[in-house]
């Protein structure tokens, strides 16, 4: 017996729209089963996980803090994926952006000027873009698989940050903790409103999402992205360059990941430390697909995924389950999104007897 995927002659419009919602529901059902098997009251667990974080102002701010990098990275990745460039290394670009953005506050802690913050943001974006330029160069010049190169660069970035904060950038007055000095007040991204921690990174995310939505929907550049993503040959016929698109998509997504990195460090952490991200760069891949690679959809899906992080922390505190559960939820969500999409385009057929086998009787 074997299983075959057969392309459906017609794709249902209704289910294309419903698919992310169905994936969400299926994830929740799988969560209930999982908690049940762990011997935890599923109703209570789901309440702690997905409802409580939405009930007070403090945690809504936390939601925005966690959604900001997810949305910012996710919209950049969506452009990348739409153009058929598979940047999997946003986590590394996030890290390098955080490092290059921190150069000024770490090396010039006594520079007090309003100009430092804009410079940090620009330097973070440039750092992320430059780091994404490595897989872009390798792909454009040597046709190297960008999935592998960008992914491998994640680990290099992580170890580089680790070495920096344990070595040259360690705070001399930090009791040997692997952290840099805390940023001066001028280098900290301010809160949007005074009621909580949500900082301007969230505003950056919304602005980026709306701008890229406009580009994809109305501008020739967005058309170019879609054409090259669907058929490079047709793109060449239109006079668009696949090679230039590699650079555009990779640099754009790298810059946004870098901006997310420095926003997170400056707005939410306040210094560099060995670990600055609970995997935002990878989770943003789920965000991009759950939002159907549409920048506006990604705002919604970024909030949903931020909730899994928040719920994970809450569940760890109040019912004592590992925060790894949030990773499980994210994995389930990606799995269900991709399977729903596959089943919209294909139907499954079980084939019990193959065609006459090729073995002769000789």
């Amino acid at each position, binding site marked *: 017996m074997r299983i075959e995927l057969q392309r459906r002659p017609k794709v249902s419009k209704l289910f294309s729209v419903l698919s992310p919602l169905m994936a969400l529901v299926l994830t929740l059902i799988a969560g209930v089963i999982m908690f049940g098997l762990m011997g935890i009251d599923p109703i209570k667990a789901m309440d702690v996980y997905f409802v409580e974080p939405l009930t007070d102002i403090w945690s809504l701010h936390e939601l925005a803090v966690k959604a900001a990098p997810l949305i910012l990275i996710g919209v950049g990745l969506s452009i990348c994926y739409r153009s058929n460039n598979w940047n999997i290394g946003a986590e590394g670009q996030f890290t390098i952006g955080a490092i290059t953005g921190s150069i000024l506050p770490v090396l010039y802690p006594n520079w007090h000027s309003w100009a430092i913050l804009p410079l940090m943001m620009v330097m973070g974006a440039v750092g992320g873009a430059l780091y994404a330029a490595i897989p872009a160069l390798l792909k454009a010049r040597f046709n190297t698989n960008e999935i592998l190169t960008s992914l491998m660069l994640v680990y290099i970035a992580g170890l580089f940050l680790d070495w920096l904060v344990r070595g040259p950038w360690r705070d001399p007055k930090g009791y040997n903790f692997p952290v840099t000095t805390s940023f001066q007040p001028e280098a900290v991204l301010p809160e949007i409103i005074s009621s909580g921690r949500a900082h301007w990174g969230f505003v950056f995310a919304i602005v980026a999402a709306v701008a890229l939505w406009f580009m994809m929907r*109305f*501008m*020739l*550049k967005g*058309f170019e992205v*879609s*054409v090259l993503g*669907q*058929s490079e*040959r*047709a793109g*060449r*016929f*239109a*006079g668009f360059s696949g090679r230039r698109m590699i650079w555009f998509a990779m640099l754009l997504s790298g810059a946004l990941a870098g901006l997310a990195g420095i926003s997170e460090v400056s707005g939410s952490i306040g210094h560099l430390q060995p670990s600055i991200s609970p995997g935002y760069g990878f989770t943003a891949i789920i965000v991009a697909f759950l939002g159907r690679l549409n920048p506006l959809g990604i705002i919604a899906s970024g909030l949903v995924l931020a909730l899994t992080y928040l719920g994970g922390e809450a569940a760890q505190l109040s019912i004592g389950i590992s925060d790894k559960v949030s990773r499980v939820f994210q994995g389930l969500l990606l799995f269900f999104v991709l399977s729903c999409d596959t089943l919209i385009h294909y139907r499954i057929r079980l084939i019990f007897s193959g*065609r*006459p*086998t*090729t*073995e*002769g*009787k*000789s």
Partner: protein
Amino acid sequence: MTLSEGGSVVSLLAVRSLTKLFGDFAACNGIDLDIAPGEIHALLGENGAGKSTLVKMLFGVLQPSAGQILWNGAPVTVGSPGEARTLGVGMVFQHFSLFEALTVAENIALSLDPKISLARISEEAAALSKAYGLPLDPKAHVADLSVGERQRIEIVRALLQNPKLIILDEPTSVLTPQEADRLFETLFKLKAEGRSVLYISHRLEEVRRICDRATVLRHGKVTGACDPKQETPASLARMMVGSDVAEVHRDQGAKLGDVQVEVSNLSVPSRTPFAMSLKDISLKVRAGEVLAIAGVAGNGQGELFDALSGEYPVAEDGAIRIRGKAVGKTGINGRRLLGAGFVPEERHGHAAVSAMPLSDNLLLARSRSDRKAFLSAGFASVIRRDAIASATKRICEVMDVRKSGEDPLAGSLSGGNLQKFIVGRELDRQPSVLVVNQPTWGVDAGAASRIRQALIDLAKAGSAVIVISQDLDEIFEVATNIAVISEGRLSEPHPAGTLTLERIGLLMGGIHESHSISQTAASASEVSHAH
């Protein structure tokens, strides 16, 4: 060597009124064929004549709709390639089925009984390749091998099954002349062992050189069975191309204007192992002229189109001139701005994006040339949907594009209607130069005549048109002048009125101008001496 028709020898393989229908279309229509033991039998025909369909039925890839296959005189059903191999039929396909990342021995092992060890396969393959003069290293990775060496793997793979009949589909179309000579030696060895070879080709010289008998197909029917050594290339070409095609001529009254496109000594190396290189191509097309470029598929048509369109600019700027301007290094949009339009062969994924609506596909070809009409000024370049929608509507009306809905996806249109839209998209700009590759390939008859008429009308209105086509009927319908492309070389153009199908057939079979062909059979036989 020639066996008399209906001789006493029992045929190794015989085919009786074999027919294959695809819907209403008969790809093979009542074909009879006899292959004697120990002969090299040629199957000749143009593209689309039904050669591949016939061979696929013999090898069990397709099942016949009617008719009989006899093996050693006994009727058989060939249900699958596996059954064909068991009978003793081996096949070497035109497009190889090899895994590049695996070694030669591993590739061979894939088609054999999984119980045989890799070491034994390597040993046998090495022995076979030595015996037949097919040098091959079993440990080499396929990715590192030349096209000729890859073909040897396929041949050795077929020989390992000890077949009585080996079918080769256009084997020399991918080989250099030297590689082809080696292949012929191998074929003679196989023949000396009493094996039969079915040799599919459209190259007349080759067939005359190595084949004992030939069966000629045209439009799915056998149009001739002969001893190719007794025939002239001219008579073979006539059988292949047929003489029942109406020799339509354009009215020659139209006056030709200035040269609009000029290609001089254009040479382009091949981009991939399977691509053809262009060799020293020169042509001139004047305003009001339709230059048709005939040729069998895979002789450099696609590469010539890429060079003319600027999708792949060429090294020498002066090698291509459009309206007097050197554009060799200019990209496709730069050439469009000079007034040129282009229609590629492949509709889906080249001329159009199937999953995008027609309006987007209009923008695809004209985002630069109609920038002012279709985009807002300034940096943002916002797409003006209303202007594009009305242009789409206009094109669909002029070209009679039948579609469902206002702006359907390109992929939902039939081939003919999509092609009308793609041609109409260029005509709508009134280009002064139009280059079209296979304008009516896979298009229904009604749409085809609509498109051909549009090309003639465009030339009449004073544009220069280049039509690359494999369809000789089409070429005679639209052409002012005809040139033939073969193995990346372009012949001198001839006025359409002075050419016959026979001469075109000769040129297509790879016999070049330098051999000074004339139309009489007598001098055609001189040609064969020249080789």
